[in-house]
Structures are given as C-alpha cells and as structure tokens.
C-alpha cells in the first residue's frame, strides 16, 4: 500500500514585470509529475540544480502551494486542506533542510526549538517533554546536556543532527530530506547518512531523499526518480541504476560520476551546453537541446513516461 501518491503535480512560478507589475510569464518548475512512495520506502530524487527536485519535495508537504495536481497522503487528498485540517498531516510529514546554518533560528536554544514543536502538537504529556527532548538528542547522537546551547555553538554536522531531531520530534511517518548532506564535509556526510539510515530502520520512516549526488542516492535509496527541467525522465530501482539506466540523461549523469578505478574503460556521454531556462522550456522533449539521440519527433512531442520493464519507467522516444 503506498503511503503517498502524487498525481500530475504542476508548479509554475509567475514572473511579474513591466510598469503595471503584470504576470509576464512563468517559470515551469515542476511539470506534471506523478509517482508513489510505499510505506517504509526510500525514494531518491536526482537531477541538476534547478530541475525542480527541491520544489517537488516542498510541494508534497505543502511548504509551497501547487498550481495543480494532487497529493494523496495515506488515502487523503491533502492539497486543498485548510490550515487546521492540515495540522495532523503536518505532524506526520517533516522536512530536513540542506543548509544547517539557515535552517535553525539563531535565537532559540535547541531545547526551545524542540519544545516548541512538541508542545504545539502535544506529542507527549507536559511532564514528559524534557525527557522526550533528552531521548531525541540521544537518538541523533548529541549529548542531552548540550540542549541548552544556541545553534551557533554547534558545528555543521551537529546542526544537521539538530535539524533531524526537530523533524523527528513530532514522530512523523514521512520525511522529505532535501539534500541533507550536500552542505557537509565528506567525512561528516557519511556519519549523517548512516544516522539517517539507522533512524529510518529504527522508526520505520518513509523518505523522499533529494540529492544531486548519484552515489549518495545509490547508497541510500530503494527507488530513484531522475528529474530534468521539471519532468521525471526516468524512474527505476536503485539496484538497476548502473546496468539498466536507459534515458540518455541518466546515462550522462552516471558518466559524470567519478569512478574509483582509473583504468576502467568507460563510455562517456558528456553533455554540451546548459540546462534550458525553465522560463521558456523547449517545445517537445525538455532534453532535446542536449540529447545525443535526438530525432525529429523529439522536437514536436514530449515523450510519455512509460513502463519499459517492471518498475522501470522511461520518458524517451529513442528507448525501445
């Protein structure tokens, strides 16, 4: 049974300009994305900067309101719920941010920021709040006696642990991890990833794991969505990623990933040019400007995301 079902999610940011501040255009951040996440599953989302992966994560937990499309959470359609109706779902869905420096209010101690959330949702009776906070601190690998410190007294890795503790404070089922390790040192990345993996197993969490690093995705996820310019271009199991990747963009991403063995003979697909502006995306397939396999049909029509083999969907005319 899938915990989350996203149907045809679209987000266009209006661009205003001119003397009258009219809407002169829109940025196509997310263009009709559909997928499911099963309970206990980790779904990775990978793509270049600006491909809409963070926007997608925020759309699901409604930090951004969608232009159209639906999110079904545990069978309930949540995109049109009011503030109060949304609260129980807010509790069940949390987010861990990329930048551990801007994601913590500099004026609140760790204790204050955890307490605020716990008390607001009455997670535990008032008498147990303090011990709940101590448990959370221990869970993310911080000492409970550090809880009265301010964020600036911690290192980047510790701050990210605080961010994780804040997300866990509400006992959520689902966490959007928005590039949780990309701002950290490599040595710390592994620690934080392992922590998240342990917590996921321990608490049975479902995760949407956003990253631009295929290695991290491979290490961490069950399934992966490859996004390009607001479209999902390929969806597959993480185990298949090396042998089975079919979409030329996915292959290019894999090719751009460094390999440990300098002697390995690899066929490299190097992409030319930049991602087209999401303000005026190309007609037809979004990848048409950089695709090595481009054919005339690609300029006319967006290829649909079709299931090629079981659990493996690709959006490309050239892939049979």
């Amino acid at each position, binding site marked *: 049974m899938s915990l989350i079902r996203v149907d045809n999610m679209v987000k266009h940011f209006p661009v205003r300009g001119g003397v009258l501040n009219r809407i002169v255009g829109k940025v196509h951040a997310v263009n009709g994305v559909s997928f499911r996440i099963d309970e206990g599953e980790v779904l990775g989302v990978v793509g270049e900067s600006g491909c809409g992966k963070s926007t997608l994560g*925020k759309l699901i*937990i409604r*930090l951004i309101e969608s232009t159209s499309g639906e999110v079904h959470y545990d069978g309930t359609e949540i995109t049109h719920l009011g*503030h109060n109706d*949304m*609260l129980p779902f*807010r*509790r069940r*869905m*949390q*987010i861990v*941010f*990329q*930048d551990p420096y*801007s*994601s*913590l*209010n*500099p*004026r*609140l101690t760790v204790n204050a920021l955890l307490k*605020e*959330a716990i008390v*607001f*949702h009455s997670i535990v009776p008032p008498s147990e709040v303090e011990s709940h906070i101590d448990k959370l601190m221990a869970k993310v690998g911080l000492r409970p006696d550090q809880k009265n410190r*301010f964020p600036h007294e911690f290192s980047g890795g510790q701050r990210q642990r605080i*961010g994780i503790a*804040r997300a866990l404070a*509400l006992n959520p089922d689902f966490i959007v991890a928005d590039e949780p390790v990309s701002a950290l040192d490599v040595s710390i990345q592994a620690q934080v990833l392992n922590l998240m993996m342990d917590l996921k197993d321990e608490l049975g969490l479902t995760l949407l794991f956003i990253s631009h690093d295929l290695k991290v995705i491979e290490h961490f996820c069950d399934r992966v969505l490859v996004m390009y310019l607001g479209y999902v271009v390929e969806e597959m199991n993480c185990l298949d990623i090396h042998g089975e990747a079919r979409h030329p963009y996915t292959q290019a991403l894999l090719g751009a990933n460094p390999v440990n063995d300098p002697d390995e003979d690899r066929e490299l697909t190097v992409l030319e040019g930049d991602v087209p502006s999401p303000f005026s995306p190309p007609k037809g397939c979004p990848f048409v400007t950089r695709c090595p396999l481009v054919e005339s049909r690609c300029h006319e029509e967006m290829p649909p995301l079709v299931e090629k083999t079981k659990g493996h969907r690709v959006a490309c005319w050239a892939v049979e």
Partner: protein
Amino acid sequence: MILKALRSRGARKFRQNRLAMFALGVISVYGVVALLVALGGIRLEETFERVSRNSIPGAWGSQTSEKRVNDAEEYLEEIESALDNEEHLEYRFAERKLVDLPVEELVERVEESWEIWDELADVSNVDEHPELLVKLDEVEERIDALFAPLEGVDGWMYAFRTYLGTDRQGRSITVRAVYSIKLAIQVGFIVALAATLLGTLLGAAAGFFGGWIDGLVIWLYSTFSAIPVLIMLMVLVTIFIDTPYEGTLVPLYVSMMLTFWIGPCRVIRGEVLKLKELEYVQAATSIGFGRFYILVKHLIPNTSHLMFINFSLLFIGAIKNEVILTFLNLGVKNQPSWGTMINQSRQEVINGFFWQIGAATALMFGLVWAFNIVSDALQDSFDPKHVS
C-alpha cells in the same frame, strides 16, 4: 536573550570601539543627570527663580563696567527701599537675606556705598580710569557684605547656579540647561521607542504578509517620506493648537512618532523579506505554526539589532527636532528646554551675551554627538552590510 546579545560577536566588536565606549559613558552621565532631575533634584519652579542680577556672565566671563555700575545701582535701590519700608527682615534677593545687623548700621553702610557709587555714576568710560575700577570693586564688595554670607551647601549651590551666568530675567542658566537634559532624554526615549515599535510592526507585517498590506504600508511610507520632515512635524503640531494639549509634550510625541516610524519600517520590512525565505521559517511552517506566531516568535526577534540601531538614530532625531520645534514656538511651553533657551537668547546674542545659547548648544551637542558615535558603532558592529 539580552545576555546572549551581550556575549555576541557584535557586542564584542562594539566594546572594542574605544570612542564608542567613551560616548556610551557620556550618555550614561546624561542619563544619570536626567534621572536625578526627574527624581526631584531640580524642581520645575527652580528653573524660574531669580538667582542673581539679570544677564550676568558665567564664572570665567567678564562684564562691562557700565553694567556693573548699573547692577550696583539696582542693588542699592532695592535694599534702600526695603530699609525705608522697614521690610528689611523679609527682604530676600534670590534666597539671600541681609546680614543680621541693626537697621541704623545697615542704612549707614548703604549710605557709604552710595557715596562711592556717586563718583562712578557720571563717568561714561570707567574702564579707562584704573582708580575708578578700584572703587567699583569696592562698591561691589560692600554690597556683597550687606548680605549674609553663604556658607557650606548654600555657597556651593549659589556657585553652581551662577556658574554659567543668568538670563535676562536673572534665572540660572545652569539650572535651566541641566533641567532640559531631562526633557530631551524623556522626549528622545519615548519618541524613539514608540516610533521604532510602530515602524517595526508595520514593516514586519508588510514584509511578511505581502499583498495588500505590503502595498498599503509602502504607499504610506513613500507618501510620508515625500514630505520634508520639518514641515510634516510643524503641520502635525499645529493640529494641537487650541486644544488642552497645546504647549505640552503630547503634540511633540504624536507628531514625531507619526513622522519617524518610516525609517525603522523600511529597514525592518527589507530584513523580514529576507528572513522569511530562510529555512527555519519554512521548518516552522512545516511544523504547522500559524503565520502570526511565526512572525512574532521567529522573525521579529531576529530583527532586534536593527530595532536597536534605529532606536538610537531616532533618539537623536527626536532631541534635535524637539529643540527646533520649541525654538519655533511650536514645542513645549512653560518649562525650560534647549529650544526655549536658544529662542530667548536671540536678543542676548545681539548684545554680545553668549552664555545662554552657549550652554544650551554645548549640552545638546554633547548628547547628540555621543548618540551619533554610538549609533555608528552599533551599525558597524551589528549590521556590517549596511553602508551609511
């Protein structure tokens, strides 16, 4: 939170700024004086009392012999008429009473003084005759001796009151200038606090909620800031004419608050626009907090450094504009203020008497200078991005 602010990097930087610490010391001295005045150190009535002859210069000044001759004449006439009417026991000149001697003795002494004075009376240029100057000194000594000597605290008080001379009504410039410190700090504090709070609330609401609220606030402050500050203040103060509040501090408070909120409003709006995109605000949204709670709990506290800086800037503005409005007869009445003093000294300056305008501007300069230094240092320490 205050303790944390004191330990922060900005505070450390501020403390290392020696000039700013000195200026802070100056402000503290002013603050202490204002507090003492407010606690009754100087009563309002004292600022209207005569302490000596009119327009006498301060301790290190000199006056023309012509004026000295005139003052001696006035003294002797007053004492003489008191003696003639047998009121000499009640006679006081600025709390000084006559020496405790029999009336005949006093009359005799006055007669002797008149005799010496007569020699000076008809001479137009006493200064050119050294022997007459000696006589003038003698007359003054004799007159002084007619009064009971001031001893101990009274002596100190008299010296303090006449230290910077007297105005044209014989009132102490020192007392009036020092009393005005309290008024200046009171106006500065209340206006700066009210305007900063008003500006912060409007600016934060505009930046955070956007939409029509933002449009309204921007429209308001653009309109207000298009009007020159002084003209705006004068118009607003004029509204209170012929109401019971005329001449009190209320028109000053209201007009300055309505004019000065623009500065903090614009700055805080910009800061909130920036802060509201930060991830801790999104995290608070994802927890489910209401927008108002997020604004009050997570955004406004993070603009406190800007509130602080704006407060000290407005403090100066309020003091200066109180003086300007009072000078223009639109401000406080019936109590001393640096503005009143400067206004009164217009006539004195023509006659070459600079003590009153000097005292008022020097004290105002000290306070405004110190606040300027402190605001600059605050800005350097807490808001390094700001270039002013």
